[in-house]
């Protein structure tokens, strides 16, 4: 579903590459944790998948297509196939829960009838039944992230990218979010989640790809992650 071939990304020629010759394959229906300290290149990976930036060297394939060959007017179609959530939720503060999720459908031209039918379904999937008319500031952080997830999946993307989605949440709330992401993955969506939260990684027991200074240093099926606060000697 996502394939990186010797991908290098250099933002600034004076500093080290943000990604350094990264090769990686993420299959359909997989759930992958992308772990690593801050600055290791996780967000850069996600930006390259979305074609928000172009790789300096190497090739990025999404659903079999080299994104470098997608003309700019076709990029929106690529992004319709990918949902994204971020640490800071990025909700529209003056729109209700329903309207925030509906917005993602309106802007790609979905009909009112389809929106009215789909949005409540998706809100149910993320565990926000009955909160249609709440405004974002009336929600907890965990609930706001659920709205963001609902918005990311409402157009039924094949891939969901999550960039530190639990970064602003307490451990209990984070586990709730992980359940939602796992459920979405069970429903057939490929999930790539960037995080440096070792508790979550170790609880979920999914594939773990670790980046360090832009290079893949580990790729374990059902792996664990020992964050930078713990000593590396404990690893293994």
């Amino acid at each position, binding site marked *: 579903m996502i394939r990186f071939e010797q991908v290098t990304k250099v933002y600034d020629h004076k500093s080290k590459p943000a990604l350094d010759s990264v090769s990686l394959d993420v299959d359909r229906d997989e759930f992958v944790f992308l772990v690593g300290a801050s600055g290791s290149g996780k967000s850069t990976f996600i930006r390259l998948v979305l074609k928000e930036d172009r790789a300096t060297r190497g090739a990025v394939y999404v659903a079999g297509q080299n994104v470098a060959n997608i003309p700019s007017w076709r990029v929106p179609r690529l992004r*319709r196939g990918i949902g994204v959530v971020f640490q800071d939720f990025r909700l529209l503060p003056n729109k209700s829960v329903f309207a925030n999720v509906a917005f993602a459908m*309106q*802007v790609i*031209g979905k009909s009112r009838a389809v929106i009215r039918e789909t949005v409540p379904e998706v809100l149910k999937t993320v565990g926000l039944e009955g909160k249609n008319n709440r405004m974002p500031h009336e929600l907890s952080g965990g609930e706001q992230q659920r709205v963001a997830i609902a918005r990311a999946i409402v157009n039924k993307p094949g891939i969901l990218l999550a960039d530190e989605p639990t970064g602003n949440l307490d451990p209990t709330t984070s586990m709730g979010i992980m359940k939602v992401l796992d459920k979405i993955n069970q429903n057939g969506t490929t999930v790539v989640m960037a995080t440096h939260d070792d508790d979550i990684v170790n609880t979920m027991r999914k594939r773990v790809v670790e980046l360090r200074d832009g290079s893949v240093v580990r790729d374990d099926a059902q792996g664990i992650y020992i964050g930078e606060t713990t000593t590396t000697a404990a690893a293994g």
Partner: protein
Amino acid sequence: MRFAFVLGEIASGMRRNLVMVVSVVLVTFISLTFVGAAGLLQLQINQMKGYWYDRVQVAVFLCVENSTSESCASGPVTDEQRSAIEAKLNSPELSTYVDTVEYESQDQALVHFREQLANSPIVEAVTADQLPESFRVGLVDPEKYEVISEAFSSEPGVDIVSDQREYLEEIFGYINIASLVALGIAVVMSVGAILLVATTIRLSAFSRRRETGIMRLVGASKAIIQLPFVLEGVIAAILGAAIASGTLWAVLRYGGEWLSREYPQMGFISTQELLLVVPALFLLGALLAGASSLLTLRRYLKV
């Protein structure tokens, strides 16, 4: 759905940006008013040309007692000379140039003179024998004045050949200058309008960066993302064009009416001429704003 969505975005964008939108309306109003004024002045020149070129004539003035030109050395025009001149005007060689020939006697000249200067005190002092008799020559092509001038200026009995078109050209020259000044102001104001639209769009894009960021991420097309911004500028410019058109209409309707009353023979343009100018103003306003916002968005609203 998409249409309603775009309209909603435009409305909310214009509300958020109301002060800037009002400035764009006002600046496009002023600049388009000057564009329209320049256009109308050109139409006025054309109208006057059409009206007057049929009527203006070349006047061949004949010698009187105190004429000073060389061809009048032998004194006032004689009957033979007058007949010779008339025959020459009606000759086959000149028939391709000359359309009409009318004779104006000294008495008729005095009548015209009194008509034209009805309120002037000098009228009383002038007598018929001080005014020259003349042939009034209408030309097939008014531009070919030189032909008559060359043929008659040294003819015995002819004092001077005068082209009334020269006076008109002078008037047209002044109108032309006025029209160029209006055009110059219009150009400067239009540059101001373009910059203001660019700034407005930039602010608007900034104030809606959350929305557009999300639109990008969920795969909204470039058109859907940019259209509300472009239309916001275009709508403001069209409002400006509408006010400019209204202003020009009022000027023509009331100012033109007054001028036509004061100078009935001048042939002033009427509000009908706006039918030509108004669509051009709307088109120009929309183009200015549209082009300016597209160029701005390319820089400030990456897709």
